[in-house]
């Protein structure tokens, strides 16, 4: 039986979405201050407008709160789905005014890409973008990487009931601490440590390279945020290629790896349990995948013969496997080099790394290593059952923050998400091909969008058809929320629009 939402449900959701939008407006104070500090007067007005619009729209939605409002699990799911879209729509306002985007849809594309930590961009003339707009683009990574709801919960902005549901709806499978508020604050603490360390070390690297102090610090902060939050935006059009530095790439690899690890794993290691790092099924799956796929990249590069010597293969091949697996999308190759210079095996390996993704409850996207591990264990169990006598009871265990029993519920949950991702990847590939792009490139771009990676073969550009931009926006959004919250919202809309006769209300 489908439970149809009524007007009261819509008002509750609108109220909380309004709070998210106001929160986005408050976050815009950071780029506003940046603009004022660097005398970017016109850009500062972009943020004054952005803040005004966010406060006005958010304020109007906030007033929708009905009497005796109680936030249910379904409300939490739907408002998380809608909240991400509304936050992106508000975040796009100053970007649209910046002059670096051809239209509002393009600005929305980058806002969604920023919040979902995808890193695909349709910005024009990125090399002349103001510091304040770059600050805002990277700040969307920082907020979205941890989660918009996590951000709201850690500040406890008027979110009372349904907090756990919203937290889980945001693609987080696990709590770290018993209290969800402490969990969200712990996530921010871990992030602050890594981003702080990354900024410090990269500032040193940039100083060595000869960048001016202020510019060096800003670039260091943005790159640290983009790498740790597995986002992939960069302040220059050349992305990571701009710096021509082994040191820079080494630091960003460290940050990407840290960002792709489960926050729970960080907590375990910080508590002193370092063995968890090696015993955890996620770490093992990630390590094996990275090793195998790096081998395929090396094979692909060897076939074309363009990249000679182990140094070039490691620097270009392994770097991109890590960038793809972690869902970061930092690039040290030009987009067309994937199809021309890297070779078929390398192209396919990057595709698989993007699709697989990082760890659950991390800032990474994609199917996730834990689900792969569970499905591999499920296959193993099936083989064990087939080989055992009928009367035998077979049990399979796996280690993930403690020893766990593989149950049919765990297997089916992993399989459902796995199938949903595959369907999304393939659909996006078909849509891209229908717009006239080569099928392989279209599949690459689709996986990059849905798995929130950000690597590109060159399809994503300001010249991309608007229909494809909108489809990739949808893919980035649904991929980041891992389907449940997004599909609940869609179900809410469909059921809410049904004729009232003969339906049950929530």
């Amino acid at each position, binding site marked *: 039986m489908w439970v149809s939402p009524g007007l009261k449900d819509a008002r509750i959701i609108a109220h909380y979405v309004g709070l998210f939008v106001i929160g986005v407006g408050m976050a815009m104070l950071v780029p506003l201050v940046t603009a004022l500090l660097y005398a970017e007067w016109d850009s500062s*007005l972009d943020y004054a407008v952005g803040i005004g619009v966010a406060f006005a729209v958010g304020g109007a939605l906030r007033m929708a709160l009905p009497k005796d409002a109680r936030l249910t699990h379904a409300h939490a799911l739907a408002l998380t789905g809608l909240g991400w879209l509304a936050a992106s729509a508000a975040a796009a306002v100053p970007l649209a005014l910046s002059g670096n985007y051809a239209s509002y849809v393009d600005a929305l594309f980058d806002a969604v890409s920023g919040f979902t930590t995808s890193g695909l961009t349709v910005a024009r003339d990125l090399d002349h973008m103001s510091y304040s707009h770059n600050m805002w683009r990277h700040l969307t990574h920082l907020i979205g990487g941890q989660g918009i709801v996590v951000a709201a919960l850690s500040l406890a902005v008027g979110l009372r009931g349904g907090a756990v549901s919203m937290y889980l709806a945001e693609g987080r499978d696990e709590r770290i601490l018993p209290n969800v508020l402490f969990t969200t604050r712990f996530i921010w603490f871990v992030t602050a440590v890594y981003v702080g360390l990354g900024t410090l070390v990269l500032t040193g690297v940039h100083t060595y390279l*000869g960048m001016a102090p202020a510019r060096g610090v800003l670039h260091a902060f943005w790159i640290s945020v983009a790498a740790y939050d597995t986002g992939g935006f960069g302040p220059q059009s050349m992305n990571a*290629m701009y710096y021509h530095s082994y040191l820079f790439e080494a630091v960003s690899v460290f940050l990407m790896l840290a960002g792709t690890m489960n926050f729970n794993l960080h907590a375990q290691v910080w508590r002193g349990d370092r063995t968890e790092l090696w015993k955890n099924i996620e770490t093992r799956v990630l390590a094996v995948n990275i090793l195998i796929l790096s081998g395929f990249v090396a094979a692909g590069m060897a076939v074309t013969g363009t990249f000679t010597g182990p140094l070039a293969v490691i620097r270009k091949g392994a770097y991109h496997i890590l960038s793809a697996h972690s869902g970061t999308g930092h690039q040290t190759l030009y987009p067309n080099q994937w199809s021309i210079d890297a070779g078929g095996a390398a192209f396919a390996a990057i595709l698989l790394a993007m699709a697989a993704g990082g760890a659950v409850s991390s800032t990474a996207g994609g199917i996730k290593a834990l689900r792969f591990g569970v499905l591999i264990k499920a296959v193993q169990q099936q083989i064990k059952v087939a080989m055992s006598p009928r009367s035998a009871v077979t049990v399979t265990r796996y280690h993930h923050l403690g020893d766990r029993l593989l149950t049919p519920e765990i297997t089916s949950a992993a399989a459902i998400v796995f199938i949903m991702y595959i369907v999304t990847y393939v659909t996006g590939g078909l849509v891209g091909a229908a717009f006239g792009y080569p099928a392989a490139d279209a599949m690459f771009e689709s996986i990059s969008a849905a798995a929130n990676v950000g690597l590109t073969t060159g399809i994503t550009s300001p010249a991309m058809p608007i229909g494809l931009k909108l489809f990739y926006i949808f893919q980035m959004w649904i991929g980041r929320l891992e389907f449940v919250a997004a599909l609940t919202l869609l179900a809410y809309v469909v059921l809410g629009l049904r004729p009232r006769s003969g339906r049950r209300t929530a």
Partner: protein
Amino acid sequence: MRVAIAILLALLIAPAQALALTADDVFEVNVPGLIEIDRLLDGTMVSFSGEAIGEDLRADATHRWVNVLEDGMAVGVYVTNEQAAQIETYGDHGHRGATVRVVGQVNIACEQHGGEFDVHAAQFEVLDAGGLIERPVTPLKAVAAGIALTIAMLEAHLYRRMLVRRMR
């Protein structure tokens, strides 16, 4: 017999050598065209011009990297410290960078630089010094911000009143 083979080879190779590219050949390209370049031209001399962006970055004790932008795409150019010193302005939000002309060897995966796509400059010339970019303030944005913030303040007042009324 050996002499005959040598003559035959010389006859076969001579026209091929005449057609083959030499280091003296310089292909005029633009930066996007350079990145899309036919892979057979890897290692040949190219010439292009564009805007120097960001800043020059240390490559080694005697060389710097200058990133050159044209038509939305940029490429790293490996130049000597002296060549880099010719540039006074680099492109960023407030500046139009110097327009430079580069003649150099294109490397699709440079062995010296760990597989980078780069150009090793043989000749490097500043065509235009660059300068400031005027970014005038748009008054309409200030008006829009004022209106939106006024509406927001009004709504905040109404919301507070609504909550107070409900608490009674």
